[in-house]
């Protein structure tokens, strides 16, 4: 009985240690490694035709800010069309889009959907045919791209092997609540360290579904956006990698986003991410493990760990349950110091690498005072752990059911919300030192 419980606990500890090492190596690489950002300073070029897709479902609070920001961009207007996709909004979104289309008929071409499968992935799939531009950029409606952002995101596509590009997301409503401050820290660790390290190491930077884009030819090569997924971004990332395309990350291409300001909104968001990511895990772990000839071994390892990110939560919870059961069986004392060490590593240091990553990212951003919030991250971790585990269990219990609905994050912006300066006048430097001025 004891062994039956101890062995899975050891396995879980081992998985945690692997993720710990991964976080740690990424952070070391970001701090001391050579940085790859080969495309960022291209300013003059024969810019390709670009279509910017903005999926909208009841976005009247934010969509005009987004369109203004895009129209103020420095991308050549004759090479750019903006396609706001109104997917069955029931608020004033369509009126706003019609107004913009009337004022900017050559550039703003709304795409309206009243039927078909709902959701961002399906909306993108349907609208792809509406634009034959070479490059398809995608932004969520609450984002505020800076003036030069589109050129920065398009520049990597001059490399014919690049299939998708991802920029950096920077929260604009950081000071709203403890939650927004914690999310700001998490994003910092995720982009400034994690994504850039993957870029440096030639692994798989993840295309995140917004502040990024795909090459149309690559998209068509893999069959277009899948509309039966909740995470079309993770899905397309792995489809492209498996098909031999490169996914790149541009740390200096920053764009403001509105992060959830209340916990219920955050919980819905992370549950959706978990379900979508788990879908991708089930779809791509085996094709990745079979390793197509062009995919390197370390890319496979990184890809599998990336796919498993949202499985760590339920695994950790299971580990806690095992630890509690073992405690009642009296294992704690008989195993002595070794058990203490293992529990110490598993319940604490296993997560500490994440603290290290976040702190390093914030320090690289030059905004070190916010690192004092580090211990509060455990608050966010607890909520995420439970939410992700709950979403995973519910997903397993209802795996046959399709999620044909818009899973949308609540918008908090009001008419009086002050928008950041990055909107329309530069590169969206979200932090004191930008993140790569040097």
């Amino acid at each position, binding site marked *: 009985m004891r062994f039956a419980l101890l062995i899975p606990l050891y396995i879980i500890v081992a998985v945690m240690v692997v993720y710990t090492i991964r976080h740690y190596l990424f952070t070391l690489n970001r701090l001391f490694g050579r940085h790859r950002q080969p495309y960022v300073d291209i300013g003059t070029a024969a810019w390709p035709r670009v279509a910017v897709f903005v999926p909208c479902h009841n976005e009247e609070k934010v969509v005009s800010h987004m369109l203004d920001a895009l129209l103020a961009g420095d991308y050549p207007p004759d090479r750019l069309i903006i396609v706001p996709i109104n997917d069955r909004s029931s608020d004033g979104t369509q009126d706003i889009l019609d107004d913009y289309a009337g004022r900017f008929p050559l550039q703003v071409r709304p795409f309206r959907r009243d039927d078909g499968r709902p959701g961002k992935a399906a909306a993108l799939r349907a609208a792809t045919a509406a634009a034959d531009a070479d490059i398809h950029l995608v932004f969520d409606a609450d984002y505020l791209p800076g003036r030069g952002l589109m050129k920065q995101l398009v520049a990597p596509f001059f490399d014919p092997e690049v299939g998708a590009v991802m920029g950096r997301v920077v929260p604009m409503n950081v000071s709203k609540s403890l939650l927004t401050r914690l999310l700001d820290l998490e994003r910092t660790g995720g982009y400034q360290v994690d994504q850039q390290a993957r870029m440096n190491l030639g692994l798989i930077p993840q295309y995140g579904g917004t502040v990024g884009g795909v090459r149309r030819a690559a998209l068509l090569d893999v069959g277009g956006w899948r509309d039966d997924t909740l995470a079309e971004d993770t899905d397309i990332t792995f489809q492209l990698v498996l098909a031999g395309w490169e996914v790149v990350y541009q740390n200096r291409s920053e764009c403001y986003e509105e992060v959830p300001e209340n*916990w219920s909104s955050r919980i819905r968001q992370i549950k959706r991410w978990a379900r979508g990511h788990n879908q991708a895990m089930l779809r791509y772990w085996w094709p990745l493990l079979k390793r197509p000839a062009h995919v390197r071994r370390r890319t496979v390892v990184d890809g599998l760990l990336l796919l498993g990110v949202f499985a760590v939560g339920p695994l950790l919870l299971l580990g806690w349950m095992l630890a509690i059961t073992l405690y009642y069986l009296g294992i704690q004392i008989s195993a002595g110091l070794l058990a203490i060490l293992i529990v110490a590593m598993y319940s604490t240091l296993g997560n500490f690498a994440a603290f290290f990553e976040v702190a390093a990212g914030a320090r*690289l951003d030059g905004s070190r005072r916010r690192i*004092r919030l*580090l211990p509060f991250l455990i608050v966010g971790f607890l909520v995420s752990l439970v939410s992700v585990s709950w979403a995973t269990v519910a997903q397993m219990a209802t795996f046959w059911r399709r999620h044909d609905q818009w899973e949308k994050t609540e918008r908090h912006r009001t008419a009086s919300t002050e928008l950041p300066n990055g909107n329309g006048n530069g590169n969206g430097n979200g932090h004191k030192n930008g993140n790569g001025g*040097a």
Partner: protein
Amino acid sequence: MVGLPWTIWRLVTTLILSLGGLAALLAALPYVGRFWGAVFERARDFLGIHAPLGDQLFSLPGGITFALPVLAVPTPLPDSLVLSIAGIVCAVVLVGSFALPERFTPLRYLLRFLVVLQGSAILFFAVSRDPFPYRLQDHVFILLTAGLVVMGLVPLVLGFTLHLFDLAFWKKLLLTLAILIHLAVWIPLQAVAHLWLILHGTALLMPVLFLTGGLLLDVLVFVAFYGWALSWRGEQERRETLPPVHLGRKARRR
């Protein structure tokens, strides 16, 4: 892109602080044990706990042996009345967690987590035919030894995660000492608090205290210090903000 320059000096100071810190801690362990014994003695008298104070030897690989204090107290087990009261309290906390406003969501989750843990203890004492496998004095001893493990890891973990940054040597040294001294004071007080709570609340509180009031809090202490230290100004930033007159003759010449 911004990164951190790596220097031999930083490597040397990292090794000195990590290995030197660990060696210094190992050398100080007998004194730490004696200090903890004194804390236990004072706390016992202050809290009115009637139990003899003894020592239990603790050995580390390498022949380092030292004594940790032990208060020989009986382990109070819950009777059916205590179990019923605990069950009612758990139910009230659970219901209360649902009544909390949305902005207290993390607190809601924490309360429910504690209720589940406490519920498991109630279940164990209500239905298990096996005796509870821990004595109170063992619980306290494990708490102390686990705290020592955390203290031993502090210099090493700081070496891997903090000393890599370009903070001044004295700041790194100060932080290492601050965490170790804080833990050296915190851990026996934490153990005494557990002892007092369990004496009054019976062994029913032992699981929840062990799983959430021990290592988890020790590590949070560490993370808080770590976050504070990384919010300090680095050496490069300090140099950049100094007026030229403070830069020294060589720098001025350059």
